[in-house]
């Protein structure tokens, strides 16, 4: 493992600074990093995510009305599940910052989610739900 002396750290820091000055668009335009390396999206990105969420919700509600019931229940359920997962992912990734935060948080949450889904799928199967 390489050791970092104060001098080398300073040199690296200076190098980082010069890199940042040389490449002002190193980060994506809608993100910027804090001192801890955890990037924060801009408020405009949050607004865009909220607009997508609102549009997905509107489309979900649209599927409820009689005019689309000719599509069949299975098709509607598949569409609703896809839209639900999209909304779920948008909130978790952007509003909860998992896209920008440490992967440990992501793993902890997904572990709980997958465990819950597995346990209750088994439960529903045992009760012959399907």
């Amino acid at each position, binding site marked *: 493992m390489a050791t970092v002396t104060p001098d080398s750290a300073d040199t690296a820091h200076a190098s980082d600074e010069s890199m940042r000055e040389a490449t002002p668009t190193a980060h994506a335009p809608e993100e910027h990093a804090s001192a801890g390396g955890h990037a924060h*999206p801009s408020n405009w990105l949050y607004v865009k995510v*909220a607009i997508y969420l609102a549009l997905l919700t509107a489309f979900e509600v649209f*599927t409820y009305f009689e005019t689309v019931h000719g599509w069949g229940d299975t098709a509607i359920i598949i569409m609703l599940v896809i839209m639900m997962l999209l909304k779920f992912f948008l909130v978790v990734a952007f509003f909860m910052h998992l896209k920008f935060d440490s992967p440990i948080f992501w793993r902890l949450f997904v572990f709980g989610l997958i465990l819950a889904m597995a346990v209750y799928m088994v439960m*529903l199967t045992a009760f012959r739900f399907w």
Partner: protein
Amino acid sequence: MTAEAPAHTEEHHTSTGLSNEKLAMWVFLGSECLLFGGLISTYMFNKGRIGPDDVGPNDVFDIPFTSVSSFVLLMSSLTMVFAVSSIARGDLRGNRIWLAATAALGVTFVAGQVYEFTAFYSEGLGFTTNLFGSAFYALTGFHGAHVTIGIVMLMSLLVMSMRGNLGPERAETVEIIGLYWHFVDIVWIVIFTIVYLFPQ
């Protein structure tokens, strides 16, 4: 709307290099998946177990009303992220405004749920009327209780801020409560689809 660099630059001297409080919140939210998974699967299992003359989902659900409630809760997640970003850049006044807006939207959602429960009860669907009623009230009631706890936490933050005890150095506290609030929102995303919108 522009964003500035967050003011908080604290490092976490922990074995993981991450905040223990934030880690604990994520573990808690992971465990909450099991709680709501149990309630949702119980609802799915029991929603069709009603007699021919019993009150069922098609008799009581008011989709346009619940859609507006869902939209209100979704938008409260937007105001919550604004609260987190405003405190991170040291904008205390903005933080108070967004916290108050989030709490107000949360109160609107809970008020809508109370109205919905009252309407369902007057239409003959009580907690013990049938298995659908029990599963529905247990699931949405637990969610409503979570929203109410979130509102209490938001109001506590607001009081702390007004007393001068919530500065940029405590931005992570707002972020952690924000995580809880967003979790309540994603649970509702699932409930709204499975309970209200799935063809009955």
